[in-house]
């Protein structure tokens, strides 16, 4: 289950930074303490402030949902580690439902927030892509919000069909 843990830890890292402030310094504090402890916390605080001030309401909703999914997935994983994985099918489908839904939501968030209010991640990645001048289409893929949402529903339907089928 190592890679699962790997994935789980990363997924838990992803939204936990935006929503609750404390975990971020925890994550980065390890090596950062080697240099300047204060700066790591400062950075985290800065990020959190930026995030809270710039993110629109709708995206916040998505983020909350993602945090919830991480919570659910994490709970299942903890249960699996502590209480054993006896109905392994059930655990797997429950866990991967959480992970899959998280991933889909993250994709939806990227699609909607990028073309909407360019929350800051856009220019930076653009700058990176600028190295490759022949990249014809840049970041915005031109998908409308409605299209993105329809895709999201399509993906979720398939995901949950598989999960229900797999749960035994």
């Amino acid at each position, binding site marked *: 289950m190592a*890679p699962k843990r*790997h994935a789980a830890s990363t997924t838990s890292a992803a939204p936990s930074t935006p929503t609750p402030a404390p975990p971020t310094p925890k994550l980065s504090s390890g090596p950062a303490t080697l240099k300047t402890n204060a700066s790591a916390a400062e950075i985290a605080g800065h990020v959190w402030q930026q995030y809270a001030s710039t993110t629109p309401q709708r995206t916040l909703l998505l983020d909350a949902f993602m945090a919830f999914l991480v919570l659910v997935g994490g709970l299942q994983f903890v249960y699996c580690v502590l209480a054993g994985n006896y109905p392994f099918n059930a655990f797997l489908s429950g866990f*991967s439902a959480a992970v899959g839904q998280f991933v889909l939501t993250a994709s939806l968030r990227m699609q909607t927030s990028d073309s909407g209010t360019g929350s800051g991640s856009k220019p930076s990645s653009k700058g990176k892509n600028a190295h490759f001048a022949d990249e014809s289409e840049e970041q915005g893929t031109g998908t409308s919000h409605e299209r993105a949402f329809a895709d999201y529903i399509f993906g979720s339907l398939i995901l949950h069909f598989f999960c229900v089928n797999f749960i035994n």
Partner: protein
Amino acid sequence: MAPSSLDVVLKGSSGRNTRGLLRVIILCTIAAAAVSSRLFSVIRFESIIHEFDPWFNFRATKYLVENGFYSFWDWFDDRTWHPLGRVTGGTLYPGLMVTSGVIYHILRLLTIPVDIRNICVLLAPGFSGLTALAMYLLTSEMSDSPSAGLLAAAFMGITPGYISRSVAGSYDNEAIAIFLLVFTFYLWIKAVKNGSIMWGALTALFYGYMVSAWGGYVFITNLIPLHVFVLLCMGRYSTRVYISYTTWYALGTLGSMQIPFVGFLPIRNSDHMSALGVFGLIQLVAFAEFIRGYLPGKQFQKLLTSMVLLTFGLGFGGLVLLSVSGVIAPWSGRFYSLWDTGYAKIHIPIIASVSEHQPTAWPAFFFDLNFLIWLFPAGVFMCFQKLKDEHVFVVIYSVLASYFAGVMVRLMLTLTPIVCVAAALALSCILDNFLVASTPSTETKAKATTEDKSLRSARNPVVGIYSWFSKSVVVASVTLYLLMFVAHCTWVTSNAYSSPSVVLASKLPDGSQFIIDDYREAYYWLRQNTPDNAKIMSWWDYGYQIGGMADRPTLVDNNTWNNTHIATVGKAMSSREEVSYPILRQHDVDYVLVVFGGLLGYSGDDLNKFLWMVRIAEGIWPDEVKERDFFTARGEYRVDEEATPAMKNSLMYKMSYHNYQSLFPPGQAMDRVRGTKLPKESPQLNTLEEAFTSENWIVRLYKVKDLDNLGRDHSNAVAFDKGLKRKRATKRKGPRVLRTE
């Protein structure tokens, strides 16, 4: 070729509609050509299932159609692997059977009563037509040139490397798997380009279908993560990549776990770990990218390095820990043999014994791909020139696939699609440049000269072909190559790949065809003359055919899941009769089937495979069966007078040559496969009796004798039956010895 020239002619004058229509017509023609070029075998022979594995697939399909889906899913087959049985429903890739079952039911619904056999025979050609279409779509994603896709479709339709596995009657997993492979890649490219969940989900769906159809899905499982990984390493992370990859992985992994045979492999097996690792990595990268938006560069660097170190350490440590503790299965044997070609020969003789797992001989590349193989590097080079995301994919795919194709013959199949893509890219570039009727206009020429003066054009000169001579020469030679390609493909298909290998064909001296139908003759004999549950022992190659054609239980078959059981059969074949007979009795064997090509010169017979039986048996019983014993003192493998005692006494030898000498004048018996003269008298079989020998002696069936009525052992009984007088003396000796003991 025609498509591009037509396009050129039509450019400007007619609208897009004409060109679109033409394209559709051309594609339909290509699909028709792809289908029809695979029908040689049906026309030459008949509508029959080929070779070995297809017979099992056919039998499973029949079972599916007769008993419905659910009983197929839970199918426990007690007619194979005799005492053990096989959980067939859980150990096969059901995609192929389900596909043909669905087609069958749809046709029935449309009141077209088609025999399931014909559906099975024609499934592979039908899907090859679809493959050509998928190829068109895939290549069109790579290139702006309209001709590239059409060329690739045409190549894919008729290239022998693909035809070899998809002629009519070759009802194997690859028949639909290659279509799924190409189409999954197309969807993947589409997903990466568009970055939409829908395309990613479609990729996952077709990936799931592919998983249900062929074990080669592992290729996709590793190729797509590798593509993403390389993109990440090139600094080309984008939300498109994130969306398509994560969607594909989350859905595709779940989808693949629906197949009972795959089950938990995606999280347990190391073959699948790279996908999981890249999944974790891309989450990290996405998160880092997200943070980056809020931070200036310097602090971000610090944060990033610490995070990367932390997670990498955690992940790697965990992976090592779990591999050591055995939660994650080690790499499978077939996989090792991909990296170390000698691995299988040493450790797993049963894998090495299959001819399609052998390394590829280099002429095979030319034989299977013809002139595409030298256009292939050119096409890959052109991908390097453009190098968008999808071209990176082509480059990775071609590197990986060419390595694998060099290692294993059957993996030529995965190389073929990318060769077609690359070759089509190269050729379409040539044609697009050389087929332009008008010379480059003077304006561009003038521009070029003006830029020459400013010394800037050295970087980007305007290239054009001016003389009619060079144009015509190039076009003519390309046309010639294409024609030769078509001729080569047709020739290879009709001569090399269209033999069912169940029915053999040879030419009589006067040139007329001579059909050798020994296999079916013998199997039909079994079907007619033996009780329904008579157990047949044969080498595993023939297990599926016996199950499919003779409908009798077998001991081992081509699904080589139990090495010990196969080794048992190998031991029975390679030991003396006194050793073999108890084995045969213990396994309830009623008949033993041997394939013998000595009379006809059919080289794929059991005596030529005999050493593999010995080797596999030696793997389990190194004390009782020794490969060395079957070679003469000078290290030769001989079957004539000088054969070793172990060889001469082995059951296989005896069964092969039993009574064979009676066909020839005394002392003249010849083995036409091994080209040697045989001993004068035929070997004496005591515990078996000949039951049936087919017309050309290819298949020989022996009945296992029951225990002797009088409690004698078989050699004594046979000696008694043969000649009374002299044997009686020996017989009298026998009991006396017993009494003294």
